[in-house]
């Protein structure tokens, strides 16, 4: 087992706890809930295989589901996000970039990194809330939930990025 895998497992456990014990209990205005574990999926290196991305997404989602009594909902959404991530990332990579890199403000520039994060997170929340409410008849609350949760999570993406930027 390589050291990067061990670090990933450590981050996995830490992030799951922070997510389910703190962030899952914050519901701003009754609509917005931040899923900060998505940052983990966003920051996996460029050359992470699709299968590894899928597994990380699935396991993370399942762990969060287990604590919040929503079996399968987070798992389905995070797996889908893991699946689409490399395709989203590919639109922002161009020749002249190093072969393998960790997506971030440094490697991609702020603008590209934020749009890439936004695409992934919107996809995640769209699936999450459609599965949770299981109806698209109440389209307005659904859209409010998706938009507000995306904004809140993006805020944490930016904060996390600022911290790693300073290093």
């Amino acid at each position, binding site marked *: 087992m390589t050291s990067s895998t061990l670090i990933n497992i450590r981050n996995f456990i830490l992030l799951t706890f922070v997510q389910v*014990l703190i962030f899952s209990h914050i*519901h701003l205005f*009754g609509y917005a*809930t931040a899923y900060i574990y998505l940052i983990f999926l966003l920051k996996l290196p460029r050359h992470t*295989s*699709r*299968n590894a991305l*899928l*597994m990380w*997404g*699935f396991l993370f*989602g*399942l762990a969060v*589901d*287990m*604590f*919040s*009594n*929503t*079996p*399968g*909902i987070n*798992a*389905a959404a995070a*797996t*889908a996000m893991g*699946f689409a991530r490399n395709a989203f990332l590919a639109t922002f990579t161009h020749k002249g970039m190093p072969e393998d890199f960790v997506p971030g403000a440094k490697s991609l520039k702020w603008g590209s990194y934020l749009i890439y994060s936004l695409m992934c997170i919107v996809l995640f929340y769209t699936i999450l809330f459609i*599965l*949770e*409410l299981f109806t698209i008849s109440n389209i307005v609350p659904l859209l409010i939930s998706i938009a507000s949760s995306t904004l809140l999570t993006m805020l944490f993406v930016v904060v996390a990025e600022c911290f790693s930027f300073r290093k």
Partner: protein
Amino acid sequence: MQQILNFLIKHNHWFLFILLEGISFVLLFSFNNYQSASMFTSTNEVAGNIYSMISDVDGYFTLNDENQALLEHNKELISEIEALKEELATLKDSSAIAAFPDGKFRFNTARAVNNSLNKLQNFITIDKGENDGIGSEMGVFNDKGVVGIIYQTSGNFSLVMPLLNSKSMLSCRVKGSNSFCTLRWHGEELQYSYLIDLPRYAIFQQGDTVVTSGFSSIFPADIPVGEIERLEDSDDGMFYRARVRLFVDFASIDNVFVVGNDDKKEQDTLEQSINKLK
């Protein structure tokens, strides 16, 4: 053949994707049944114990209020016992007391260790399970009123479907009348639920108390549920609908009672045999 194999290997992530999404959906749909696998909910040992630890720490901060509430409840119970004792003394000689049946309800106490409020399907995790004699479809209430019904159980934890769950249905009665009706939650508002299918001929007023009917064999009769706040027409205009302010404050649930009914199985099999005849 070689080409097909190559194709499959090249696109193996598609299959993994479909497999994982498949597992997610199986979990999602199987959760909709009572008695389904509780491994992937917070009744499993890992999640249950972690929540239990957190709630131990958390519990200290609300000890004062909780003690006060328990004292109040004790006071009420003591006065009730005194009243019943007097009643008993007057009845001592009469034969009515001999025919008084044994209570068929068994009570148990538990503590809520986790609680969700923001979803359409909220759940509460409590720290007692099968090992303490708790099974699914038992009633849960606290000193204020009805909390919900046990949904799933594991060895040491149970999942409660509170009244604040769009799937929860509770058989109720308005105090002072004999019409039965069903309580359902419409989502969104934390303190309000609706009585649906109230018959038109029944007379209700704002401020009437809603209690359990004792019909469903889950709860004993007359446990308080809430208070009627407003009467309105149902969507089809055939019935009344009442907006009910629930007595229980779901944001601060801590100690609860679980009630089981020894005769429930008998009643259920009897009722099912009638359904079969239809």
